[in-house]
């Protein structure tokens, strides 16, 4: 297990109440496991779980992606985009 910085934006930040938290994940993991783990830690996110995305190291991730997490890996919870 490794402690990873998870960032929350937009509605995710409003629901969680924080911009940033450290969460433990398995070092070798995948998109679905990351998602599940975040939702277990922050059930308030259930409100947007169907529409939220994850970004790993500032790249949008997709279901099925596998990851090897390291100390500086950044995970971000990305709600639906509404820029512009």
């Amino acid at each position: 297990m490794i402690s990873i910085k998870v960032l929350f934006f937009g509605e995710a930040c409003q629901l969680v109440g924080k911009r940033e938290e450290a969460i433990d994940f398995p070092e070798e993991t995948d998109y679905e496991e990351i998602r599940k783990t975040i939702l277990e830690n922050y059930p308030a996110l259930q409100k947007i779980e169907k529409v939220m995305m994850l970004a790993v190291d500032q790249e949008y991730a997709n279901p099925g992606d596998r990851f090897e997490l390291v100390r500086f890996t950044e995970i971000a919870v990305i709600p639906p985009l509404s820029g512009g």
Partner: protein
Amino acid sequence: TFIDVSESKFDDKNKSIVNFRQQILDDHIKLTDEVIDVKVVDQLVSHPSCGAISTFNGVTRDNHGGRDVSNLSYDCHDLMAYKKLRGICAEIRAEYPDVKKIAIFHRLGKVDIGESSVIISTSSPHRKTAIQATEKCIDLLKEHAPIFKYEEYSNGEVDGVWKSNIEDSKQ
């Protein structure tokens, strides 16, 4: 500003340096909580070789879906947004090689009704390119930039709403 040196394009150092320099000089990306102005953005992309500047100005409206908007604000994953917007500029240049300069300015935090939320300008020798490049730019920003709009309404009863470009485009 950082470069991902693992990208294959860095096999050709000279081209990479030219590309990098171009990005620094000709792609102007700004995320700011200060008021943004069309005149400033237009000036940034002007160039003696360019006869055309096309500008898109996204302004905060006073209503949405029949409700009066009292407040509007933007949250943003800044570092990732810069990265995505630089990528958008590269994509624009690949599709429209005669684009000279690009400027993408986006407000963060609270934006008053009537103020600009986003201003995008591109310049090119002739009009077709600038018009198409600017349009593509705002389309790509709405599709890929990690920026999030929160609207609050005047009628006190309803909570603020986090907007979704995908949802809006379905209407």
